[in-house]
C-alpha cells in the first residue's frame, strides 16, 4: 500500500509537470486580458472634410483645427493662366473646435459671396467593435451661412434674413477595413432667397464619399453630391471631386481636382455651374493644422 502511494506521488509529480493542470504564461495572460473590450473605430477619415463635404470626424476634445482651403481657376484655361493657378476662385479660412469628443463647433469665412458660416456637428453613434458591436458612425451636421456680398438687384430689398442659408445633414459612415471607408450624406439646404427665378429654396441631396488608404500617410478620396431636384436649378451641376490626403500626424494636406469652387455646402451644392463633361475642373487644396489645448497629465517621472 505504501509503495503504491509513493508510486502515485511520483507519477503525480510527473503529470503535474506536463500541462494538464499547469498552464503556460501566455494562457494565464490571455485569461487575464479581456479581449471583448470595446474598441472604437478610429480614423474613418483623416480630416473634418472628406474633400468639400463634411466628414463624420470631429476634432478631439479641446482640440482646434485651423484650416485654409483654396480653389484655383479652371485647369482648361490653358498655359496663359498656368492651368488656373494664376487665379483664386475661392479661399476659406475656418476654425473647428471640439467641445467634447463628440461635439464640435466651427466658424469659417469664404471669399465666394463674402460668406461667413458657422456650424455644429455632433457624433450620435460611433462605430465600434467588442461586446457591443456598432457597424457605422452617425453624425448630424447643421450650419448657417450669411452671404455679405453687395446686392446687385436694386428692386429686391436686401434684408439680413434674406442673406441666410441653412444646411442640415446626416453623416453616415462605415470604415470597412483599415484601408477603405465610405460615407453617405443625405441633406437639405434652405436658402431664404435664391439667385435666379424658378430655383427652389430647398435643395435636397445625397452625397457619397470614400477614402482609400494607399500608403501609411497617403489616401485617395473621392466625393459626389447628387441633387434630387436638380432640374429646377438653372443648369447648376452636381459637385464631384477627387483628391489625395497627405497626413503627417499634425497636419493634413488635401489636394484635389473638382468642378466646384464652393467651400461650404450651400456654395458647392447649389452654385456649381461647371460641367464635368466640359472638363471644367479646378485644382485646389485644404491644409489643416491641429492645436491641442489639453493639459498633458505627465506621469512620466524623468530623473
Amino acid at each position, binding site marked *: 500500500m505504501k509503495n503504491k*502511494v509513493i508510486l*502515485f*506521488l511520483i507519477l*503525480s509529480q510527473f503529470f*503535474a509537470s506536463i500541462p494538464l*493542470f*499547469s498552464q503556460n*504564461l*501566455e494562457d*494565464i*495572460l490571455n485569461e*487575464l*486580458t479581456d479581449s471583448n473590450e470595446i*474598441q472604437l473605430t*478610429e*480614423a474613418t477619415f*483623416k480630416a473634418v472634410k472628406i474633400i468639400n463635404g463634411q466628414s463624420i470626424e470631429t*476634432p*478631439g476634445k479641446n*482640440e482646434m483645427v485651423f484650416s485654409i482651403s483654396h480653389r484655383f481657376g479652371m485647369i482648361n484655361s490653358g498655359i496663359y493662366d498656368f492651368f488656373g493657378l494664376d487665379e483664386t476662385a475661392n479661399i476659406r479660412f475656418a476654425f473647428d473646435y471640439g467641445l467634447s*469628443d463628440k461635439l464640435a463647433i466651427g466658424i469659417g469665412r469664404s471669399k465666394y459671396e463674402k460668406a461667413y458660416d458657422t456650424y455644429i456637428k455632433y457624433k450620435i453613434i460611433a462605430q465600434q467593435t467588442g461586446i457591443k458591436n456598432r457597424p457605422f458612425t452617425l453624425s448630424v451636421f447643421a450650419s448657417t451661412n450669411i452671404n455679405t456680398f453687395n446686392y446687385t438687384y436694386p428692386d429686391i430689398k436686401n434684408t439680413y434674413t434674406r442673406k441666410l442659408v441653412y444646411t442640415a445633414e446626416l453623416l453616415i459612415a462605415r470604415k470597412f477595413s*483599415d484601408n477603405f471607408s465610405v460615407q453617405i450624406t443625405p441633406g437639405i439646404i434652405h436658402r431664404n432667397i435664391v439667385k435666379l427665378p424658378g430655383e427652389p429654396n430647398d435643395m435636397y441631396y445625397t452625397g457619397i464619399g470614400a477614402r482609400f488608404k494607399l500608403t*501609411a*500617410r497617403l489616401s485617395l478620396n473621392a466625393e459626389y453630391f447628387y441633387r434630387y431636384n436638380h432640374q429646377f436649378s438653372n443648369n447648376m451641376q452636381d459637385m464631384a471631386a477627387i483628391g489625395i490626403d497627405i*497626413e*503627417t*500626424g*499634425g497636419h*493634413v494636406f488635401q489636394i484635389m481636382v473638382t468642378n466646384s469652387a464652393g467651400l461650404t455646402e450651400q456654395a458647392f451644392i447649389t452654385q456649381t455651374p461647371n460641367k464635368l463633361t466640359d472638363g471644367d475642373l479646378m485644382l485646389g487644396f485644404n491644409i489643416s493644422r*491641429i*492645436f*491641442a489645448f489639453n493639459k*498633458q*497629465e*505627465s*506621469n*512620466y*517621472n*524623468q*530623473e
Partner: protein
Amino acid sequence: MKYKKLTLVVGLIILWYTTYSQDIFTTKTGTINFVSDAPLEVIKASSNKMAGVIKTSDKSFLFSMDIKTFQGFNSTLQRTHFNENYMESGKYPKATFEGKIIEDINFNENGSYTVRAKGKITIHGVSQQRIIKSKLIIGNKTLKISSDFTVLLKDHKIQIPTVVYQKLAEEIKVNISAELSPQTK
C-alpha cells in the same frame, strides 16, 4: 480504505492547484509610459492596462500590452497616426516582453532587489533579445516591479519619415511599473 484513497487523490489535486497558484503572480493594471523627446516636439503617452505574469518557481515572466490603450499624445490625430502608421496596431496589436529573471531571488523573503530581466521584447512584430534592469520589491503577497529603459525605433523596424525627423526621437524612453498579486482561481 477506498474512500481514503479517493480523498488522497482529491487532496493531492487540490494541493497541486494551490501550490501551483501560489507561484503565479499577475496584474492587468500595470502602468507604462513613454516619451519621445525630439528637438522639435515632445510626445508623451501612457497606458495603465499592461498585463503581466511572473512565475516565481522558475523566475519566468511575460508582460503584454495592447498598443491601442495608449493615451496622451499631442492630439487625437497624432494618436491615430501612432496606431496606424508607426505601430500598425491593427496588424501588431500587442507589445510583449517574455523571459526569465537572471538573478536567484528568494521570493519568500521580503525586500527590495535590483534584478536583470532577460528575454525577448516584441514591438511592431519585431523581436529583440534584451536584458532590462528592473527594481523588484517583494512584499506580503505582492511583487512590485518598476523599470526604465529605452527602445530604439530602428530595432523594431519602425521607420521615421524624413519630414518628421526632427519631431520624433529615435530612442524612446519607456517607464513601467506594476504591482502583481497571487493568481486567484
